[in-house]
């Protein structure tokens, strides 16, 4: 079970003042929250690394938290930035550059629901969603995905490109 918003906020306020005990508790809670937050968004094999990267960002950017405001939307914003950055890196590595703007202003947990991977994939044409699942989540190569779906290799690439671009736009507008 994850601590309440009020508890997290108090822990963060104490952490900003340098209280290490509070900070250790806070990071542990953040780790749990982020694992749940990312669980429906990325491949399980990437989860630990992304949670770690986000916790490091939480640490480095803690001065950007406003103690007068709720904590979880701030954490979600940090998590969301790291997630989109992760998608970009994956996309760049395989397909080239993805140039969408990043917006990070989630206000509550409903953002998590709106942005779940399955929700995003469900909005795509089946051809795009299918190859993204196969290549980006299952880990098949372009050739294997082409064989399995009957799409040409170039169409698989185009569908991944268009699908991820559309998902990123939905993330941006969420």
């Amino acid at each position, binding site marked *: 079970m994850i601590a309440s918003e009020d508890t997290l906020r108090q822990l963060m306020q104490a952490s*900003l003042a340098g209280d290490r005990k509070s900070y250790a508790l806070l990071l542990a809670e953040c780790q749990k929250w982020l694992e749940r937050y990312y669980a429906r968004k990325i491949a399980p094999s990437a989860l630990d690394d992304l949670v770690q990267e986000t916790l490091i960002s939480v640490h480095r950017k803690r001065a950007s938290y406003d103690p007068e405001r709720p904590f979880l939307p701030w954490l979600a*914003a940090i998590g969301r930035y790291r997630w989109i950055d992760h998608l970009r890196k994956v996309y760049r590595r395989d397909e080239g550059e993805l140039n969408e703007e990043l917006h990070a202003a989630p206000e509550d947990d409903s953002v998590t629901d709106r942005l779940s991977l399955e929700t995003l994939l469900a909005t795509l044409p089946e051809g795009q969603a299918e190859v993204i699942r196969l290549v980006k989540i299952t880990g098949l190569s372009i050739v294997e995905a082409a064989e399995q779906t009957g799409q040409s290799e170039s169409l698989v690439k185009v569908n991944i490109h268009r699908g991820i671009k559309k998902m990123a736009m939905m993330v941006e507008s969420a």
Partner: protein
Amino acid sequence: MAGGAGFDLSQLVDDLKPVRPIRVAEGMALALAMMLVVGMLVYGLLGVRADIMAGRPHMMFLLRWASLLVLGLATGYAALASARPAVNPHDGRSIWKPVLALSSLFPLGAVVAFLRAPPENSVQAMDMFRPFWGLECLIVSVVGGVIVATAMILWLRRGAPGSPERTGMLVGIASGAMAGSAYSIACPMNTLLYVGTWASLAILLSSLLGRYIVPRFLAW
């Protein structure tokens, strides 16, 4: 730090030091101080308009100076506020949009003024587009804008802007507008055609530079 499940939170805990939350007002004060520096450089290098020295500034100067300043403040605030993610989005950081729309009356007015210029004045109107008249405005606004933008970027790097591209564009508009406002104390031109053309071009150029150069300094 090693990746994956072996990650040890105690590394971050051990590294904890007290930090003071960033304040947007401090960033704004820094940007305004840099605008003042640009104004002093303009004063030292180019002097001040005669009507200001006489204590009776021309209406076009006042309009130009004030509108550029307001545009700089509104976009500067939006850029700096983006360093604190997930803070109440209704805190005034969106006001730059109507301000920018209002500022677009200058270039629109310039187009109308050009189209409606009587034939006997058309040569004079065309003359306003010559770089001879506007290059100084363009250079001072952009170069002075770099001074303002540098301070804003350094401040923003302490925060966590969620959209570096958008923030970069806002930094570009803000810095160009603030430097343009500072330059207006020296610029002797009082026509809508001139202001609408050259001040707008300077801001457009600054916003493009901000959009495409600044994000690499803001990524985190």
